[in-house]
């Protein structure tokens, strides 16, 4: 335990700015993965254990697009669009067959695809780790805000993720499609009886979830190494986020992800040997005091 460093940091604006942005970076990427997970659970009532694979594919798609075109924007687009398509196909062809099935069956199908997708990546891109490299536009000196260090790329990353959160939140709350999705989550039988194609909604939601995870992967590709199986570690933390925030709640995923980011960021200063443990400890505290998670009641 190193509380002096932690209190010293809290007293210094430079340290506060650096660590807070650091927490946001970790949190926002987690949010993009976790929100897809929570959305899919909220509407489809399926815990998509293979969600990490979409994060992985997003990163690989982005890297390939970037290598072929040299355009960072196109790389992001390919990462997101590619995984959306993959999500749609995966849901229609495989997941849709196990909706009524036992939870264990769903878990088995998902886990099978964790392994299959990892092997597919291995076959296409090889088993060795890869790096996409930072686009030259972002290879600039970091900004100094109130003495704290903030890399420009991370500002973009936080911006994109926050915009995604806002668009998603407003889209679900205010648009007709959003209302239909919420209705489908609440009572799919009734929605179907009203002549709405629920299969399309399910496929769409899965594609959306996949797309968000793919976007996270694409955004992470310039700064994280790409390996088959890279989705798994992210998945575990995303589960923690959704459990803390409440399964099915988008706001919960956002708050949960930022909290985890901050715990990691400030925890590494104050409790360098217990940073991982802090996350789980926090999850336990939340679960004991609010078993449905912080915002678990929003979606029934």
């Amino acid at each position, binding site marked *: 335990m190193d509380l002096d*460093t932690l209190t010293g*940091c809290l007293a210094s604006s430079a*340290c506060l700015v*650096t*660590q807070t942005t*650091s*927490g946001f*970076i*970790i949190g926002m*990427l987690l949010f993009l993965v976790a929100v897809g997970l929570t959305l899919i659970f909220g509407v489809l009532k399926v815990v998509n254990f293979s969600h990490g694979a979409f994060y992985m594919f997003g990163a690989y798609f982005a890297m390939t697009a970037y290598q072929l075109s040299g355009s960072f924007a196109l790389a992001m687009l390919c990462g997101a669009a590619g995984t959306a398509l993959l999500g749609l196909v995966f849901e229609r062809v495989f997941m849709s067959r196990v909706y009524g099935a036992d939870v264990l069956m769903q878990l088995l199908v998902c886990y099978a695809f964790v392994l299959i997708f990892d092997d597919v990546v*291995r076959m296409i891109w090889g*088993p*060795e*780790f*890869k*790096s*996409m*490299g*930072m686009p030259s536009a*972002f*290879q600039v*000196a*970091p900004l100094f805000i109130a003495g704290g*260090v903030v*890399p*420009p*790329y*991370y500002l973009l990353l936080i911006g994109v993720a926050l915009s995604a959160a806002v668009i998603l939140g407003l889209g679900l709350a205010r648009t007709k499609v959003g209302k239909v999705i919420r209705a489908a989550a609440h009572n799919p039988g009734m929605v179907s009886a009203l002549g709405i194609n629920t299969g399309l909604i399910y496929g769409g939601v899965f594609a959306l979830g996949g797309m968000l995870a793919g976007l996270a992967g694409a955004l*992470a590709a*310039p*700064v*994280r*190494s790409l*390996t*088959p*199986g*890279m989705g798994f*570690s*992210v998945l575990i933390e995303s589960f923690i986020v959704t459990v803390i925030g409440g399964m099915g709640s988008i706001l919960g995923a956002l708050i949960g992800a930022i909290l985890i980011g901050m715990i*990691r*960021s400030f*925890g*590494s*200063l104050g409790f*360098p*040997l217990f*940073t*991982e443990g802090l996350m789980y400890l926090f999850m336990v505290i939340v679960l004991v005091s609010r078993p449905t998670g912080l915002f678990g009641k929003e979606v029934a």
Partner: protein
Amino acid sequence: MTRTRKPGVNRRATLAMMGAGAATLAMPWVARAQAKTIKVGMPTILSGRVAQLGTSSRNGVMIEVDKVNAAGGLAGRQIEMVIRDSKGQPQEAARVARELVNTDGCELLIDAEASSGAFAVHEVARDLGVLCIHTNSETSALTADPKQHIPNAFRTARQGVHDSIVGGSYAASISKAKGLKKWATCAPDYAYGRDTTGEFTTYLKRFAPDTEIISESWPKLFQADYTEVVTKILQAKPQALYSCLWGGDLTSYIDQANIYALFSQMEVFAVNMADYTALTVVKNLPKGIHSGNRYIKTYPATAENAAWGDAYKAKYNEYPTNWSWENATAIMLLAEASKKTNSADGKKLAEALRGLKIKSPFGADGTVTMRAEDQTLVGYAIGWGTTIPQEPYVPQVQAGDWKTIFELEAEWKKSKGYT
């Protein structure tokens, strides 16, 4: 063995026969010892995040096995490699090793596991008595600790304590020249990371007593994001950073530290940087990272080493790794031992291996030696230098001095109570 008891066979003979039968069941390789080909079992990591290293181990072995077979094999017997995936899990490595010997009839073992698995395979070798060469585990205790010592196990990997002595003395000389007093460390949180960092800082302080460690970070192995570690180190404002992160973890770390301009704010010593797997992957490799040599075809700067690296590249379309040369060395040593004894018998080979010195492209002076006392490889090329982002990647390597290594290693062993 026959199971029918003939009349007239006395009790003693029956017991002897039963004993022989039991031994045959327990040690099937004895029964098959005269087969024409000799099977060599090799558990290694062929899936998961470090699969690339396992594959490069296999390649390193195969390039030499092909040569040995073309030249007539081990004492006239062609080598047949039986290579199995352990997935990097110790219990799986032990199971695979046992199966390779007992079921597949392998007479020798090449243990191409990381340290976690190597200790498990070591116990199998202890139990079965089969000749086993550890090719990848760098954890010093595997051979330095007399409790681990068994006559049938050898190591052709470099050793953590050797690296730390050379790294510590190199870092201390840079430290003194540039006045680097405040150091930070960042290492993966498992046995290798902890031990290696501990040994490095011990020797750094020994050679440069006025240095101090002001910040330590222990990210977990295979962590995806190091941002909090990077910013923590930036807050501590050290003058130098030591890291033994490796592979994809190291390249991730460099990418993430790069955008915080960390490399312009301190001298970075990353022992595992100068390995082609990392060097060729990082797109924006900062200039001037200090690194130990892992495998690099320009060090030792000999025609033999360059030729070996190029032949490997020509065959497998990628450069060798640290694990490649360590595995190739195992086969080279076996071939030489078999020549000396004109035998492929594990016991005889083990006898010949002890103290065996062979010509090697990877030797500091063109030779490497299997030291008799603790059955581990010494005399291999070991040095540090700074990296540049294109070939030859480490243009100048400052060689470690084996005389100093031996002295300090002996002292270290004593301090650990090993001698």
